[in-house]
């Protein structure tokens, strides 16, 4: 009996032990921990926003996104600037693909999961719509980063599951370029419709941010439809690269209408009546009515290194400086400088002799305020110091004028005759005729070794003029980056206007609208206004865009979508401005010439589309590589 009782007890316990322990592990965060509260949603959003493919102070052609090393930034690829490290042009390919699809998956997951938790928010549709809208904006932003690089890419609009789906189902093929742009428009339209006018927090999206994205993306699509010639079809006839030309106008129209949505809600920054100071401040003032979407930084949590990398050599923190030198080609685009008939900077008189200046800044006395706020001229003021840029001291005769030091089009070095120069920042002072001493080169260049400006100019835009010298270090910059500002929307609008006008569309007075947009920008910039809409050409608008959005990582994409890069940058050598001090005259002159290191840049037409990373082609054999790679 006892044995049976023990057996019975044992059997009961064994039976009870057959109950499965069906409780999820307590050390893993589950959906409900995130989705059931505002804090959880905010944390999810923070992750997605931090992964947005924003090309700011931390995006470069060799390191991609979120890397402090801004040296090979794409402003040195577009002809706006040069630096010591960029001696040959590449396709700027950063292999951005896997990270894009990771972010897209996170957005997809959010969109399909949030509705299940509606009750936690009292079914407040406005709140839920705002969040879903943000996820759609993030998804659209990411697809735009993909399509402008690769053309047609696979559109994944819901979460994929493995091993739930077979490998064959997971290996997707590329959608057409047009389908991707249409998908971006669809996400933007939904975000515009369902989001609020204001963001939940600073740095997050809202209805107008989505409209700004649509304005930009649709303009790109229109340019591709109109100017692209590269075509690629896959085996099923899907049009992977290229958009039919007859779609150009509908994309330009969509861009124009998206730009219109922002009118009245944003305006150009005009807080300071001094247009030079105003233009400098517009990049720092957090209350600017021009800011639509901003990426914020904050020391010491999230930082970049813009100041330390770009500062003039005489203000260097330990190590870096001078990595973004605006070209003379860029400077010559602006108003307020003496120009020759061919548009180049006038540095010589009618007899071909150098014009003499008592101070270097005299040449730039009437420079357009926007230019003054974008670049630092030789002899200009920055952070309380005069930025001393001088190529050398000319010791030759000055009677009758100084003749050109080199022939036109010359790319070689200066001859040593009548010139005293310094090869590095360790200089031997030269004794001038009046007995005073002067270093041959300026404190910030131009030398022949080390870091210094290769063009005579330094960058001023976005440089923090209040930064202390002790703080001029890597990872010590935290000025914000404006992703979308209203000036860009006006430029998008003017360009779409002009393209529609040129194509004979008359439902709106597009030419007048373009004229108004360009003059608004020029007025704020302190530039000469257009007198008449008929002065406008597509080039007027494109050059205005290059001037206004300079050094904002934009021009490289513009010259690519206009399909002009391969003509503009073909065995191209950039122009520079060398200031010289004429010892026997006690004054300065400037030699405008081709760059001294004979660095040539050629844009290969293959590069209008980037190569899909090889590893992705291996994982998914249905993906076809872009042509030429």
């Amino acid at each position, binding site marked *: 009996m006892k044995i049976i009782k023990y057996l019975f007890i044992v059997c009961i316990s064994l039976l009870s032990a057959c109950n499965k322990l069906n409780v999820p592990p307590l050390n893993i965060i589950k959906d409900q921990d995130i989705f059931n509260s505002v804090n959880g949603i905010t944390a999810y959003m923070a992750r997605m926003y931090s992964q947005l493919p924003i090309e700011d102070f931390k995006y470069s052609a060799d390191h991609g996104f979120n890397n402090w090393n801004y040296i090979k930034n794409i402003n040195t690829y577009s002809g706006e600037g040069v630096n010591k490290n960029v001696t040959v042009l590449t396709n700027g390919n950063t292999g951005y693909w896997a990270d894009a699809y990771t972010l897209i998956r996170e957005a997809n997951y959010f969109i399909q999961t949030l509705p299940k938790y509606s009750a936690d928010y009292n079914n407040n549709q406005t709140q839920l719509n705002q969040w879903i809208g943000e996820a759609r904006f993030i998804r659209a932003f990411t697809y735009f980063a993909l399509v402008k690089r690769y053309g047609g890419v696979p559109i994944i609009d819901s979460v994929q599951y493995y091993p739930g789906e077979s490998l064959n189902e997971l290996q997707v093929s590329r959608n057409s370029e047009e389908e991707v742009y249409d998908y971006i428009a669809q996400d933007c339209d939904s975000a515009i419709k369902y989001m609020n006018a204001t963001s939940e927090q600073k740095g997050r999206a809202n209805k107008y941010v989505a409209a700004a994205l649509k304005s930009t993306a649709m303009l790109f699509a229109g340019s591709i439809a109109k100017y692209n010639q590269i*075509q690629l079809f896959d085996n099923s006839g899907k*049009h992977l690269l290229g958009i039919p030309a007859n779609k150009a106008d509908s994309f330009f129209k969509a861009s124009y209408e998206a730009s219109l949505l922002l009118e009245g809600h944003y305006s150009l920054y005009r807080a300071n009546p001094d247009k030079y100071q105003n233009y400098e401040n517009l990049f720092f003032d957090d209350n600017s009515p021009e800011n639509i979407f901003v990426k914020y930084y904050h020391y010491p949590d999230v930082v970049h290194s813009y100041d330390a990398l770009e500062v003039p050599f005489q203000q260097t923190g330990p190590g870096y400086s001078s990595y973004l030198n605006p070209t003379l080609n860029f400077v010559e685009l602006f108003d307020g400088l003496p120009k020759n008939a061919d548009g180049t900077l006038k540095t010589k008189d009618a007899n071909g002799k150098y014009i003499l200046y008592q101070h270097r800044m005299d040449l730039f006395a009437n420079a357009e305020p926007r230019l003054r706020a974008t670049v630092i001229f030789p002899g200009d003021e920055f952070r309380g110091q005069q930025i001393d840029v001088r190529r050398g001291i000319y010791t030759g005769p000055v009677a009758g004028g100084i003749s050109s030091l080199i022939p036109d089009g010359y790319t070689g070095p200066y001859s040593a005759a009548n010139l005293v120069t310094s090869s590095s920042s360790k200089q031997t002072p030269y004794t001038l005729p009046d007995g005073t001493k002067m270093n041959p080169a300026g404190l910030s260049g131009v030398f022949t070794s080390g870091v210094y400006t290769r063009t005579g100019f330094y960058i001023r835009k976005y440089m923090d003029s209040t930064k202390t010298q002790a703080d001029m270090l890597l990872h010590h910059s935290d000025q914000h980056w404006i992703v979308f500002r209203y000036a860009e929307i006006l430029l998008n609008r003017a360009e779409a206007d002009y393209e529609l006008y040129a194509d004979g569309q008359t439902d709106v007075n597009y030419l007048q609208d373009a004229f108004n947009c360009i003059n608004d920008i020029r007025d704020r910039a302190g530039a000469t206004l257009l007198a008449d809409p008929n002065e406008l050409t597509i080039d007027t608008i494109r050059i205005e865009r290059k001037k206004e959005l300079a050094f904002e990582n934009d021009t490289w994409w513009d010259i690519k979508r206009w399909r002009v890069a391969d003509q503009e940058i073909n065995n191209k050598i950039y122009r520079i401005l060398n200031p010289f001090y004429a010892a026997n005259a006690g004054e300065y002159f400037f030699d405008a010439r081709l760059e001294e290191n*004979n660095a040539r840049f050629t844009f*290969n037409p293959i590069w209008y589309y980037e190569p899909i990373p090889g590893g992705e082609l291996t994982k998914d054999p249905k993906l076809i590589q872009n042509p030429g790679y």
Partner: protein
Amino acid sequence: MFTANSCFKTDDYGAPSETLTGSIIDSVTGLPIQTEQGNGIRIRLDELSWSSNPVPQYFWVMQNGNFNDTKLFTGYYRITPVDGPFVPLIQQDSNGDTIVNNSRMMEINGVTKVNFMVEPFLNVQWVGEPVVNADSTVTVNFKFTRGTTNPDWQFNVTDVYLFVSEVPYVGNSNFDSRYSTQVTYSGTAGNALLGQTITINTKVMPGSRNYYIRVGARTADNVQKRYNYTDVKMVAIP
């Protein structure tokens, strides 16, 4: 233990050793087409033995228009020269349907010889011999004409370039920018010069040594904007 042994197999499949060789023939001259070494013309191979949609392989054609790859596996391939300054051998219309297909489908086995005939965008020829001047520049005369009669592939002539190099592999991928001279044409200005004799000078070239020179001309084509070339000539600067 037995299964563990069968998990390891030595890859002793034979190394590829079949040869594909031949020339890309310029339909105007009847000779192998002049191209450049690096960024010139590629041969695209699609091995159709196992799949109708394989990952393509590429290898470069030589500067003189000949090609020779001795490291291929036996198989059935589609072979197409691509990227060069000639009318593409495979063309699709705006719906993606293939309207022209001059690629070759064939077995590669042993030494396989095949030529392709292509229509170059331009034909560029020397006129007379280069002249070395007393000031150590070189003057050349040349002319360019349309290489294809198909108006869809007659684009505006964009520029001509007299390339100079100290090695025979001279062209747009390799030239000395100190001595080479480019003349660009905007819009349709270049087309007016088709068939005319054009004169270009190099810049001053230091002696005494030999240089290799070549003239390239190109159009605003929608392939890869590569140059059509003359052959290479050597000049001696005393």
